[in-house]
């Protein structure tokens, strides 16, 4: 958001106040969630059967994954649009990138066919990495919990408005969506993107 500054304050009008309020509410809710996760870990002693069950499941996981239909799209970072490349690069260096950039990265990876584990792995090097919170949020984006909506990647214009697009103009003159940019990059390389890529919404 591009807000006027005066005497150390941001000057808000009706529209910007609502948007900022929404962002702050999101940050507050996330911090409450964070606290709850911390408290639940510290205070409760899990019943023995939970541990037994999770142990049993874990031992079977490799076998299950053999039959999993979850497609693992061949990850080729050179075909990512510059925004996603930058976010991933910054996280790998431990830079604390904004929430919306993380959301964009996770939704993008989901749309191009990466598995949830692969996406979670991307966030492990982030400076404030919290395993429980990351799994929870990525699961949300994958539509496994909460509203069961599979979230899609925000469009280029939304990223520009949020000052997250690192380039002047657009990657492609007529394309306004990171996933479409990814598909075009594949096409230009001569290989088909395959079925793993979910169509970009709003592009």
């Amino acid at each position: 958001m591009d807000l006027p500054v005066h005497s150390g304050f941001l000057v808000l009008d009706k529209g910007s106040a609502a948007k900022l309020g929404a962002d702050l509410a999101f940050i507050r809710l996330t911090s409450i969630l964070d606290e709850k996760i911390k408290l639940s870990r510290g205070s409760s002693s899990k019943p023995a059967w939970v541990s037994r069950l999770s142990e049993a499941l874990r031992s079977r996981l490799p076998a299950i994954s053999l039959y999993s239909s979850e497609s693992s799209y061949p990850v080729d970072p050179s075909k990512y649009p510059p925004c996603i490349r930058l976010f991933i690069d910054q996280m790998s260096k431990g830079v604390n990138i904004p929430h919306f950039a993380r959301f964009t990265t996770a939704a993008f990876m989901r749309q191009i066919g990466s598995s949830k584990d692969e996406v979670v792995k991307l966030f492990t090097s982030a400076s404030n990495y919290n395993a429980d919170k990351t799994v929870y949020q990525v699961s949300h984006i994958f539509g496994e919990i909460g509203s069961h909506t599979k979230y899609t990647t925000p469009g280029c214009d939304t990223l520009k408005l949020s000052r997250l697009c690192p380039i002047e103009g657009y990657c492609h003159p007529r394309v306004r969506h990171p996933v479409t940019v990814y598909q075009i990059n594949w096409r230009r390389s001569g290989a088909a993107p395959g079925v793993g890529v979910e169509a970009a919404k709003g592009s």
Partner: protein
Amino acid sequence: MKQLRALEAVLREYYAGAAQPQEPDSVSQREFGFSFFDGGFRRHISFRSGSEFWGFVVKNAPRDVYFSVAKYRNPVADMHGKGWVAADLPFDLDAEQVLRTEDPLVKSGWLTQEAYDLIKREFLKLLEDFLERDFGLASKDYTLGFSGGRGYHVRVTDQVYASLDARMRRQIVEYVSLGKKPHPSQYSKVKAKVYPFNHAYGWNAKLFEWLKNAEASSTGVSPRDMVQRIIESARRAGSPQEFSVTQFQVKALESLLDAGVRERTVAIDERVTVDVNRLLRAPGTVHGGSGLLCRNIGRGEIEKFNPFTHASMRLRTRRKIRVTRLPVEVTVDGETLTPGQAGSTVEVNTGLAYYVVVRRGGEFVDEAI
């Protein structure tokens, strides 16, 4: 080598009699760095107290002394292990950028009083227009200083700014040095009139003020009569939001606003402000490349501040030098050397002698070494 030893001897003389300057806050969390006359540079050094730091300076008489804008958990570790805690927000106004010049004289540090006055004008603009008016900072929130070399520093010490990362600091740099004019898509149109400003704050206020005071002939925008009408319209308007132009004047207005942005931006050194681990010269120490002091300046002192008087070492001793080349007139502590004196041997105050020799405008003669 003899000349370098003579320069070092001057700094030893200065530090032996100088009072300990005010120490940086959280001194034990700062990283210190020093360069020496033998060409060596040492960093990742820390001190438990201001007096320990000053003891090191007096004993070693380094050529240059720096400390970090950042505070660390372990300042002596290498960059990966330091444990960054927070950092002051620094601004550096350097002659080369402020004067937007490639002049080799400026690059090599031969600055006239007039050049320093131009930099000071930009320094005041940064302070009044941006740090105070837009960011709401008061004198308790920053320290101001002369760098000892080619410009001025501001260190914003206010806690709100201390935790900003490099990306956020870059936004501040862009705000100050690139400016923000309203985009034509933000103009509102009522009947045949176009209103470019939708609020009266920040850059809108700066550009509106600039427009009202502009002279059509000096804006460099044409056609001149149209520019004049736009300026008159701004003068009639009571506030930025009331200012309007006609559809036909929009193009000229945009060019005018571009000129206004160029005029009201301040060319700060981006690398300094954005770098959260930067070492900045320590106030109270001598700039080894000039012999002038890097020193803090009070808010009320700026207008009258003259580096050649108020930042000199003020040593009472004198040195004999042979003047070889003097591109500009130099006055330190009221004593002047002029370009016409090239080729002569003169005895001058030690501060002036150091300034000329270190800038390769002369050399100490044997008696002084």
